[in-house]
C-alpha cells in the first residue's frame, strides 16, 4: 500500500562480515527505523508522514549473494530505498547495481582512496568514511606533534592486516611517516585470521620503537591488546584500527584502555552525540562504536532529511544529498563531491570515553595523552 515507505537492505548476518555488520551497521539501521517510526514515520515534502517497512536479507558475506539480494530488492520487491551493506568490498560490488537501478548509495562503511573516481563512475554514490591516506596522515600528525615535543622517539613499529583495508592504510602511512622524518623500524603485514600475536609483538617490542601502530581488524586489535598486556609491552603510543573504538574495547583491555589510540573517534562532549549514545544503548542494549556507527546513523539522518525535502524520487534525492546540508549526530554535514571529508581520523580512550583527537583543530577535539599510561 502506498502509505508505507519500503526500505530494504542486505547486510551480512552470517559469515565473515557478520561481526562488523553486527556492530556497526545493523544496530543503526534498526535504531533509526525504530526512532523514525516511533515519531510517526518518515516526513514527506507535503508534510505527511509514512511509516517505514523494512525488507531485509542476509548476504551471507558473499558478494554473489549480495548482488542477487540487491537485485531482488530493486526488481522484485521494488523497495523505495536501499541501504548499503557493510564493508568496502561489498559496497563496491553493489555500486553498479545501485547505479543501474538509480538508487542513491550512501556508502558509509567503506574506506577507499578511490572515492573521487567512484563518484565520477557512479553518479549517485556517496562515500562517507574517507580513505586510507586520510587516516594515515591524521595519525602522522599526532605522532609528529609528540615527537617534536620530545615525548616519543623517532621510531615506529607498524603492522597491518593483509587485506584491502590494511594495505590501503599502510601504503598511505609509509610515505607520510617518511616525509615526517620517522624511522619505520618494523613494518610487517599479517594474514587475516591470525590469532596469535606473541611473535609479532615481541619483535615490535624488541625494535625499540616508542610508537606501535596496527592497521588491524577487531580480532587483531583485541588479540594484540591482550598480548601486549601479558608480555608487558608498553609503547608510548599504542594505536589500533577497527575494533579499537568498539564499546567492548575497555572490557577487552581489562579496564586499562586509557591512552590507547585508534582509528576514528567522536566528539564525546557534543550533546547530540551523547544523546545518540544513550539512545543506542537503551534501544540496542549496548553503546555504538565510536567511529563508523555515528556516521552510519548520520547518513540515515541525511537520508531522512533529504526525503523530507524532496520526497522519494531517486534523482531528486541524490541531488539533494549531494548539495544539501544536514543536521546530524555528528553535526552539520555537507558533502564535498559526494564525499564526507569532515571526519575524525584519530581518537583515544580518555577517562572511559573514546574521544577524537585529530584533526586537532576541528572543534571538539581533545588533546592527546602521550605517553600512554602503562597497562
Amino acid at each position, binding site marked *: 500500500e502506498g502509505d508505507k515507505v519500503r526500505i530494504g537492505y542486505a547486510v551480512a548476518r552470517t559469515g565473515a562480515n557478520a*561481526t562488523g555488520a553486527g556492530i556497526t551497521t545493523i544496530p543503526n539501521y534498526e535504531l533509526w527505523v525504530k526512532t523514525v517510526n516511533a515519531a510517526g514515520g518518515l516526513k514527506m515534502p507535503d508534510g505527511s508522514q509514512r511509516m517505514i517497512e523494512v525488507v531485509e536479507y542476509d548476504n551471507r558475506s558473499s558478494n554473489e549473494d549480495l548482488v542477487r539480494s540487491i537485485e531482488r530488492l530493486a526488481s522484485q520487491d521494488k523497495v523505495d530505498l536501499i541501504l548499503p551493506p557493510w564493508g568496502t568490498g561489498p559496497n563496491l560490488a553493489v555500486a553498479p547495481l545501485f547505479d543501474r537501478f538509480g538508487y542513491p548509495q550512501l556508502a558509509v562503511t567503506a574506506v577507499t582512496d578511490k572515492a573521487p573516481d567512484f563518484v565520477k563512475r557512479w553518479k549517485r554514490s556517496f562515500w562517507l568514511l574517507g580513505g586510507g591516506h586520510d587516516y594515515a596522515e591524521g595519525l602522522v600528525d599526532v605522532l609528529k606533534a609528540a615527537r617534536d615535543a620530545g615525548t616519543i622517539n623517532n621510531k615506529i613499529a607498524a603492522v597491518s592486516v593483509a587485506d584491502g583495508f590494511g594495505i590501503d592504510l599502510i601504503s598511505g602511512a609509509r610515505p607520510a611517516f617518511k616525509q615526517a622524518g620517522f624511522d619505520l623500524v618494523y613494518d610487517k603485514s599479517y594474514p587475516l585470521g591470525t590469532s596469535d600475536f606473541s*611473535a609479532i609483538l*615481541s619483535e615490535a617490542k624488541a625494535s625499540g620503537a616508542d610508537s606501535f601502530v596496527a592497521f588491524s581488524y577487531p580480532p587483531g586489535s*583485541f588479540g594484540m591488546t*591482550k598480548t601486549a598486556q*601479558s*608480555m608487558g609491552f608498553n609503547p608510548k603510543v599504542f594505536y589500533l584500527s577497527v575494533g579499537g573504538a568498539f564499546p*567492548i574495547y575497555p572490557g577487552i583491555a581489562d579496564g586499562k584502555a586509557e591512552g590507547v589510540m585508534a582509528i576514528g573517534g567522536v566528539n564525546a562532549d557534543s550533546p547530540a552525540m551523547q544523546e545518540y549514545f544513550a539512545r543506542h544503548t537503551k534501544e540496542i542494549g549496548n553503546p555504538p562504536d565510536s567511529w563508523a556507527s555515528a556516521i552510519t546513523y548520520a547518513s540515515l539522518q541525511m537520508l531522512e532529511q533529504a526525503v523530507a525535502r524532496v520526497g522519494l524520487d531517486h534523482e531528486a534525492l541524490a541531488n539533494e544529498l549531494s548539495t544539501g546540508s544536514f543536521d546530524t549526530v555528528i553535526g552539520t554535514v555537507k558533502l564535498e563531491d559526494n564525499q564526507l571529508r569532515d571526519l575524525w581520523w584519530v581518537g583515544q580512550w580518555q577517562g572511559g570515553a573514546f574521544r577524537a583527537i585529530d584533526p586537532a583543530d576541528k572543534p571538539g577535539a581533545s588533546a592527546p595523552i602521550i605517553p600512554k599510561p602503562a597497562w
Partner: protein
Amino acid sequence: MLVTTLILGLVLGGTYALLALGLTLQYGISRIMNLAYGEFTLVSAFALVALFKGAGVPPLLAIVLIAPLGYAVGWILYAVMMRPLVARAGDAGRLDVASILATFGLMFLIQGGLLVTFGADFTSITYLDQGVNVLGVPVALNRLIAFAICVVAGGGLVLALGRTRWGLALRAVAQTPGSAPLVGIDVNRVARQGFALGTALAAIAGASIAMHQTFSATDGVVFTMKALVIVIMGGVGNVAGTLIAGLALGLVETFVATAIDPGLTLAATFAIFLVVLLWRPQGLFGRR
C-alpha cells in the same frame, strides 16, 4: 631470540594441538567426519563466558563443569544422530559422505543458534592474562594453562591408547570395526565413547580458547579446518601425531613470523602441511 621463538611457538602449538585432539578421536575412532567440530568448541567458549560473566564462575572451575557436559552432549548426539548413519552406511567411504552431509547441517544449526543467542559480536574475557616468565620469555598465563591442559590431556590419551586394554579396544575399532565384535568389543559403545570423549575435548579446547582469545559466533569453520589440518598432518586417529603436528605448526608459524614475515604465517602453515602430505601421504604417523 631463538629461545623466545621456541617458547612462543610451543605454547601456540599447544593450543593448536589441544584444539585438534577431540577431532582426531571423533574421526579416528568413531569415523565421524565432524564438520560441526568448531561449532562444538564455540558453544563451549560461549558457555564459559556466560558462566564467568553471568554467574561469576571462575573459568578454571567452569572447564571442570563444561567438560563432562561436553561428554554427555557428545554421547547423546552420537546415539541420536550418528549411530543411525553408521548403521546404514556399510563402508567407510559412504559413512564419510553421510557424516559430512549431516554435520554440515549440524554446523548451520549450531551457528544459527549461537547467532540468535549471542549475536555476531566479538566476545572475550580477561582472565589470568598476566605474563609469566618462562626462561626469560613473558607468556600469558592463560595460554600456558591451555598448553598444560594439552600436555596432560594429550599425554594421557597417548598413554591410555597405547598402553591400556581400553586403548587397544579403541584402536581396534578405529582400524577395523568389522572385526571388533569377533573379540567381544561392542563397536557401537566404543564409537560412542570416542565421539563423546572427542566432544568433551572439543569443549575443553573451546573453554581454553575463550580464556585467551577473542572469538565470535562465526569462527567455527576456522577452528574446524585448523583442527582438520592438524589431524590429517599427524595421521588420522594417531594422538601422538596430532600433538606433534600441532606443536610443529605452532613452531613453524612463530618461526616464520619472527624470521621471515608474519604475512606468510598461514601460507607457511599450509605449505608445511602440503609438504608433509607429499612426503608421507598418510600423515606423519598414519598407517596405510
